[in-house]
């Protein structure tokens, strides 16, 4: 293949993605607008559990960041060997695929992202009329399968992801994307379902554990032995520390009450020695 210019290569890549992307404007523009959209979606709607959550840290990095933020500018690149290709990439705004996926950010915060493909949109319009997407609003139907509870969160057509705040940790969830008729809310149309997700636990399961019957496994032989730990002293002490469902912060402050602990920093440990943490 002959050498091609940077511009041609960029177009080549974008053309590929345009097979999937409805809009033919550059994906860079799209990604910027997506950020704006996400910001506009960052407001409280319908329930107290639907805000976009900002977890970024306002860390004080002064000199440290000054040391780190030293990536070179483009014009400073010294090309050791001329490259036979030129590359330019941007991430596509969407993949034109009907999808709903959910991840656990914390034990009680879920992150959902979604999209509806152009083909599926057409099918909905053919089935429900050309105004279908104007006369309905998007909703997320959250199914807490562990507690067998359903609840609904209204989202908007400008967002493609959402943070959902849950009450309970350690539950199995499935999220459904649907459309609810604006004038007649009892009319609901199913669009797609997410993966199943189990959120993490966030407390010691002291009250739920039967210490009189603790299972031990010999990993060499595979033999099982059940033991009674009802009276072991270490557990009694641990029991004093967490007689109820203590959250993680309480647990650590109980253990280290003599130290000054900065909230949110107690876990900001390990990766910090890693160069990617900014130590390099």
């Amino acid at each position, binding site marked *: *293949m002959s050498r091609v210019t940077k511009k041609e290569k960029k177009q080549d890549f974008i053309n590929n993605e345009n097979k999937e992307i409805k809009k033919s404007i550059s994906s860079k523009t799209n990604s910027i607008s997506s950020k704006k959209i996400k910001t506009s979606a960052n407001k409280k709607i319908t329930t107290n559990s639907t805000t976009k959550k900002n977890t970024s840290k306002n860390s004080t*990095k002064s*000199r440290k960041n000054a040391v780190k933020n030293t990536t070179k500018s483009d014009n400073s690149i010294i090309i050791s060997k001329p490259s036979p290709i030129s590359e330019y990439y941007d991430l596509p705004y969407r993949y034109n695929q009907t999808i709903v996926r959910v991840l656990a950010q914390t034990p009680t915060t879920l992150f959902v*992202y979604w999209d509806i493909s152009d083909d599926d949109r057409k099918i909905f319009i053919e089935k429900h009329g050309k105004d279908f997407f104007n006369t309905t609003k998007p909703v997320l139907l959250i199914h807490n399968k562990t507690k067998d509870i359903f609840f609904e969160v209204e989202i908007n057509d400008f967002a493609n992801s959402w943070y959902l705040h849950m009450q309970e940790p350690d539950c199995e969830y499935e999220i459904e994307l649907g459309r609810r008729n604006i004038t007649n809310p009892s009319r609901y149309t199913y669009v797609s379902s997410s993966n199943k997700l189990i959120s993490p636990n966030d407390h010691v399961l002291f009250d739920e554990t039967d210490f009189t019957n603790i299972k031990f496994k010999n990993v060499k032989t595979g033999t099982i032995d059940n033991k009674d*730990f009802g009276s072991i002293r270490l557990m009694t002490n641990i029991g004093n520390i967490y007689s109820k469902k203590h959250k993680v912060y309480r647990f650590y402050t109980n253990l280290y009450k003599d130290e000054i602990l900065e909230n949110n920093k107690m876990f900001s440990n390990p990766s910090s*020695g890693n160069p*990617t943490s900014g130590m390099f």
Partner: protein
Amino acid sequence: MTTNEKGYVCFILHAHLPFVHHPESEDYLEEQWLFEAISETYIPLLKNFKKLENENVNFRITMSMTPPLLSMLDNKMLQKRYIKYLKQHIELSKKELIRNKGNDKVCELANYYLNRYTDDLHIFKETYNCNLIEGFKYFQDIGLLEIITCGATHGYFPILYLNEKTVRAQIAVGVQTYEKYFGKKPRGIWLPECGYIPETDKYLKEFGIQYIITETHGILYANPTPVYGTFAPIVSPNGIIAFGRDLESSRQVWSSINGYPGDPNYREFYRDIGYDAPYDYIKPFIAHNGVRVNTQIKYYRITGKTENKDYYNIKWAMDSVEKQAGHFFDCRQSQISYLYSQMDGKKPIIVCPYDAELYGHWWYEGPDWLYILFKKIYYDKCDYKLITPSEYIDLYPEIQESTPCRSSWGANGYSEVWLNPLNDYVHRHYHIAGDRMVEITNLFPNEPKTSLKRKALNQCARELLLAQSSDWNFIITNQTMVDYAHKRIKEHIGRFTKLYYQIKNDEIDEIFLNEISKKDKIFDDIDYMIYK
């Protein structure tokens, strides 16, 4: 010397750097992460291991060495560039002796750096023939060091697992890379960022992994509650053994408030001649575009909470090392004695995992602290011994069955570092690329060994793995080298996507494929069929 054995201390150092390899340019500062880590962490660790061996100190330590790190240590181009880095530092140290003539304290330090970098060059070239992996392998082979593996590119499992095959591939390539360099299978794995989810147990099992390390609450919040807390491992119903981080010992080393590395006598990281020396003088030794950066030649000690730093004094620093090693030694003695008395005769294990690069790079004196501590544990009277997780399992195979808690060792203990409004846009690309990798693998299975399509499919697997490095999301969250992290995500997803279409349309651009294969030259023996 252990007189009345009541328990164990298990040191685990996680050695990891993201894969940074730019044959197209020598101007990527990110490449220096490796060089700084070699000079400040990996060589000092090897030197101290050697000293301990020569002094017949029977120590134990565990290290995870990640596949990207191993691949970079084995990379000829990076080895050459490290030698160039060392030569520049030797030259700079010599110039410093002239520039600071008359200032005896600084000259003494400049001379120290000159000797240190000269020694590094000798060790790197002559002792290890430019490949430090052999050095670590040696200590594993003689039984003092246990090396474990990691996910192929440090992909964060709790996010990737929506497509379980991508997690399986991370584990498979992690194990394969380990076998390539160490000639046997790893018994343990360092889950990237200690990110644990029970769904990955079956794949760990499939590739022969016996144990993992989790953050403290990975054990404490396990189900059912572990009766010995983090002081004994647990085994999941699927047979994966989990060791949990001990909080007390970790905080002594790590705490930003009162941890050892903050001692006033230790070297001050943030005073560097890259920033302090006159601009025209230091220009040849900083970034090519003239931006001041660290040179790692530093003359000051932490001193205290002041901008007026005193000169670094190596002897004083070593006094603090002795003192703090003694403190840690005594604390473990009382911790283990207490726990032993509470555990009805069971011997506790205190698991102390840290980033390897904390030792030496961040905490300059860290490798010497380890040396002194290990010597103390061996020679001084105490009731505990150093141990590796494998040795512990072999000694005490009876383990409580419990499912570890979904957790990580990132800020706040779950997934916020890798999934938050700064970086959440990335995950759909990871997931779709993962799905596409599985799709093209199943569309074109078992391509002939020499076919262009197979080469392209293998490169697709490499691009996907490189995109998945948790490092990029970490950097974005930390707001440090953000541009570089965005660039890497875009490049790997971009290259993957382009190849994906070329493969599907049967229009593989061989020039393009060859070029990106040179740039993203990692996992030479990868077989895309791991995604089937």
